[in-house]
């Protein structure tokens, strides 16, 4: 799934679109997607000026966006205008830096028409750099 297809499924846009491509999606089960982390992103000017690190909050956002795509592909008859996170518990294990390809994997624990509960991991190359769980609701 390319960027245009991603944009057709979630409302976020630059500079807050945190996925470049969906590698694999199994409706009702899981999704695997990635973002190429570029030094050209504006937030690296401040996070941090002498040591650019991809903000953990944005890794969490990438996970949430992938979860939203999984939800929409799993529940095509549900009209999701605004997805919002109600719970997120993520442990960050290693930093992500410019040049990394951030891959997120989201697995459904339970989805209903009003939202879902998901387990999630983020990888850079073979390393798990973050993992946790999240819940989001749809309006």
């Amino acid at each position: 799934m390319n960027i245009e297809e991603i944009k057709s499924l979630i409302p976020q846009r630059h500079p807050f679109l945190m996925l470049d491509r969906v590698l694999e999606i199994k409706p009702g089960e899981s999704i695997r997607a990635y973002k190429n982390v570029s030094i050209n992103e504006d937030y690296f000017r401040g996070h941090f000026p002498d040591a650019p690190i991809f903000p953990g909050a944005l890794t969490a956002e990438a996970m949430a966006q992938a979860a939203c795509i999984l939800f929409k592909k799993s529940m095509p008859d549900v009209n999701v205008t605004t997805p919002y996170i109600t719970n997120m518990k993520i442990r960050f294990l290693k930093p992500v830096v410019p040049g990394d390809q951030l891959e997120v994997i989201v697995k459904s624990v339970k989805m209903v028409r009003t939202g879902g509960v998901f387990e999630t991991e983020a990888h850079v190359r073979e390393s798990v750099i973050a993992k946790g769980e999240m819940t989001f609701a749809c309006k």
Partner: protein
Amino acid sequence: MPQVDDLILEKELREIIAKIIEIDPDRITLEATFVNDLGMDSMMALEILAAMEKKYKIQVPEEKLGRLRTLKDAINLAKEYL
């Protein structure tokens, strides 16, 4: 299907619910309502259902979510699908 003792089920579900709502397990009586008495919202109910499904390897249909209002409801729901 495994037989789960009622008291064990009650203890386990109380712990699951307390962890999700982030309150002292002792406050969760069998009859205390999640929303009015314990301050829970609808998405926490979904998290409880998801945690129950995961722990007991059961599948509870979406339409049963509205029945999950107290610890007693959770026990009955789990027993129904175990």
